[in-house]
């Protein structure tokens, strides 16, 4: 792309009248999938999208295109203006207006080697996984993917914001002929941080070598891997800390800020500049991202805001830089969650005090059962084990849990000192790489409600 994203954003903005914001996203990405120790799909994407959003009397109208010629951009600008005006005819809207420019510390999220999207490097990673699997008598399944996404925002209020983010993700599932499987994944800002050999070895250690025993419904002490903790925290992020849902009385912490909602060992922040996260300087409204203490010492501290939720909250609230789109009806979301580590040396140390419990490598198909109660359900997969007499022992069949994520945080007894950046490596629509930095943890009373065959 010859024209830099910010140049393109400014050019598109010049075609829009009145209050307007232009967001340009240039995605380049490469993904290599594999199954049964052979490559299955390889996808290379190069796309640029331009969103022109007009603001009229508190209403936003947006038009997005991936055609960047003048005629197409002018047409998008006209469309955004038309729809915003149509919305405004029914009365004033809720958006408080575009932000004033504010400085932000540039995020160090770009790695040139990753941005090369070298397919040979991906092939090398796949070969390492295949070799590790073969040596263990197993087959390898998984994904290696890298992305380079450049985002630019230009507004009629003078904001000029850019974020360049590279990301790399690899996961390995090792599986035997009877379907017993183990999992390991790594998320990073640069491809050089991925270690396919070590990753494959981690997956091997979590691959059961015997059939799992059946576990009945009940409450168990659980050791959740960092990957499993990350999934739960993502749900907590939008159920409990969304400023718009909170002010509208739909949030899980409505009327509960300042009260104890988790164990004293829980310190949860959204920290966009945390060293191991995928950093961004600005949110989707061009507002500098701020660190927010969500839970401190188990006490609910704050929710995150975008411009609109802050305005609806009033009382001095201002955007914390957590917009995911201009004037979103879905509200702001924390995208750089960091859960502080605890005192345990590793997962084995977490398991040491457990007389009988379970160890969970990976959660799957987690979904919300009740929003206000942060009640979730989901399955375990790819390595679930019984903890007996302080040792992670024999495998158990995958179980279903139905439990509240806030209750799990309230029942947390200890966490590992070390944290990892974890994600599911899911990229639907335009690539927006993010993850959670978190440790593994141990909690009591984990509610198992069923088991698979």
């Amino acid at each position, binding site marked *: 792309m010859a024209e830099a994203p910010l140049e393109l954003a400014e050019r598109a903005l010049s075609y829009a009248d009145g209050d307007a914001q232009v967001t340009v996203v240039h995605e380049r990405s490469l993904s290599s999938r594999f199954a049964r120790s052979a490559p299955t799909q390889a996808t290379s994407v190069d796309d640029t999208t331009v969103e022109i959003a007009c603001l009229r009397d508190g209403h936003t109208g947006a038009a997005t295109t991936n055609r960047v010629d003048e005629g197409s951009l002018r047409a998008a600008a006209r469309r955004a203006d038309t729809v915003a005006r149509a919305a405004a005819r*029914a009365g004033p809207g809720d958006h408080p207006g575009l932000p004033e420019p504010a400085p932000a510390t540039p995020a160090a999220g770009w790695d040139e080697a990753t941005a090369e999207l070298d397919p040979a490097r991906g092939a090398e990673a796949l070969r390492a996984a295949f070799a590790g699997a073969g040596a263990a008598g197993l087959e390898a399944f998984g994904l290696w993917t890298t992305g380079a996404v450049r985002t630019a925002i230009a507004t009629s209020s003078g904001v000029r914001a850019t974020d360049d983010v590279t990301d790399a993700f690899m996961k390995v599932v090792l599986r035997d002929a009877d379907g017993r499987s183990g999992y390991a994944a790594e998320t990073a800002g640069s491809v050089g941080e991925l270690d396919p050999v070590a990753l494959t070895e981690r997956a091997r250690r979590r691959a059961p070598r015997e059939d799992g025993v059946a576990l009945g419904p009940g409450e168990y002490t659980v050791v959740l891997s960092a990957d499993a903790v990350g999934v739960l925290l993502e749900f907590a992020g939008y159920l409990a800390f969304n400023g718009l849902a909170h002010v509208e009385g739909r949030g899980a912490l409505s009327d509960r800020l300042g009260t104890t909602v988790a164990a004293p060992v829980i310190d949860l922040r959204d920290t966009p500049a945390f060293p191991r996260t995928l950093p961004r300087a600005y949110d989707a409204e061009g507002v500098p991202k701020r660190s927010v203490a969500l839970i401190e010492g188990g006490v609910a501290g704050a929710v995150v805001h975008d411009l609109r939720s802050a305005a609806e909250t009033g009382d001095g609230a201002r955007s914390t830089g957590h917009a995911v789109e201009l004037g979103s009806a879905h509200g702001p979301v924390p995208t750089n969650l960091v859960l502080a580590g605890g005192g345990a040396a590793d997962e084995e140390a977490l398991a040491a005090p457990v007389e009988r419990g379970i160890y969970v490598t990976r959660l799957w198909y987690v979904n919300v059962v009740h929003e206000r109660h942060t009640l979730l359900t989901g399955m375990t997969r790819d390595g679930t084990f019984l903890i007996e007499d302080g040792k992670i022992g024999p495998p158990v069949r995958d179980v279903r849990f139905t439990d509240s994520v806030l209750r799990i945080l309230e029942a947390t007894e200890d966490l590992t000192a070390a944290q990892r950046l974890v994600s599911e490596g899911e990229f639907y629509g335009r690539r927006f790489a993010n993850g959670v930095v978190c440790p593994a943890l141990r909690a009591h009373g984990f509610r198992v409600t069923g088991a*698979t065959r």
Partner: protein
Amino acid sequence: MLDLLVDLADRASGRCAYAEARHVSTDDEHLLVRNGKIERVDSESGEGIGVRVRIGGAWGFAASRDATLEGGERALAAALAVAREMPAAADRTLAPVEPARGHWSGPCEIDPFAIALEDRLELLVGAEAGLHGDARIVQSTAECILRRQASAFASTDGAACTQLRFESGGGIQAIAVEGDELQVRSYPGAHGGSVGLGGWERVLALDLAGNAARVREEVLELLRAPACPAGRRTVILGSEQLALQIHESIGHALELDRVLLGEASYAGTSWVSPGDLGSLRYGSEHLTVVADATLPGALGSFGWDDEGVAAGRTTLIEHGTLRAALSDRQSAATQGLGASAGCARADGFARQPIVRMTNVSIAPGDAGSLQDLVADTDDGLLLETNRSWSIDDRRLHFQFGTEVARVIKDGELAGLVRNPTYAGITPQFWGSMDAVCSQEAWEVHGLLNCGKGEPGQLMRVSHGTAPARFRDVEVGVA
């Protein structure tokens, strides 16, 4: 555009064993009215070319928004480069296909994009207003989802075809909060309402405004309704919930790529094994399931799939016995089938085709109307409108929640219970089905958010269903 793609396929010949080029141009519009205000009008237009090639058994796919011959050539070069770098893979011939030629258009009586924006918004404003009137309703919405998509496809196997489809629909929803309780009620379905192939006439037929008062009253009633008791009960699944039940525990389980372990690291595998086709007992004799890409008005209908295989109709389960699976050209060849079932679908130009559902539907039974089925049930729950869903990675153990359960007592409906959930194991659950309503109660439901693939793809599919009854089901598990 088709000539350009044919030219591109010609240029790929000799440089790979197989190549296909696809151009997709999509216009989307989403209108949302929320809490008495026009919340948002979003429109998105995009186009591009995706090229997929096969070299020595390894695939390479590249996509570019540059829809010129030069852009297509760059995508072809990138796809070839990626495929060449891949480690070696088994080089099986793809299942044969008749070259796709011609043009297909989906139904559309009234072009939704030709309706004045003010008129479209007025319909939604009027529907959403019917949800107002009680401070406990903290969010009320009416939304409309529209799409126009034109595509062209050419391959080195001689395909050269074009397609045009319109998709339209919408829905309303109310969320109410009282104390620590939050309840949701939607019409005509959750997750965006009802969307199907067609034009504005589909939105008009929904009668969103005419259903708003009932939605409002039910969400308020649910706030103070008793909780769903735990136990084992007879349940009747309403047709929308049954659509998701089929989707999760039949449709995905019968995707042949999953059965062959191709999706083991993400979407998962299947409890069905390759050798089960033709013999496995999947459910009771009342269970007949068909995948039909020719179903009128359904989101999974088309002229050809994204490998150029003509739309067809496949019986997947016949009176409880598994007969066939959903396949693309590669999985069909691996399984030794004579032809693909025509289930290769891609989400836009920037994703490659993978095995997806088309329209996987349950055949109507002979239990009459929903009222007839309720009258034939002494004691049970009628579960309606999905709220929560989860299933394991082999599609065996599932747990669903619905917005509402209606108590059935002595053949009559007797009030609501809130937060209903039910769980089960796929073959046991389908084996417990003892009645399916008749054709008169059979409806088609669209699902917009079927996720699969890496990078992720959201596919739109439909399911034809009629309410069905299941015995001895675990309920109240949450």
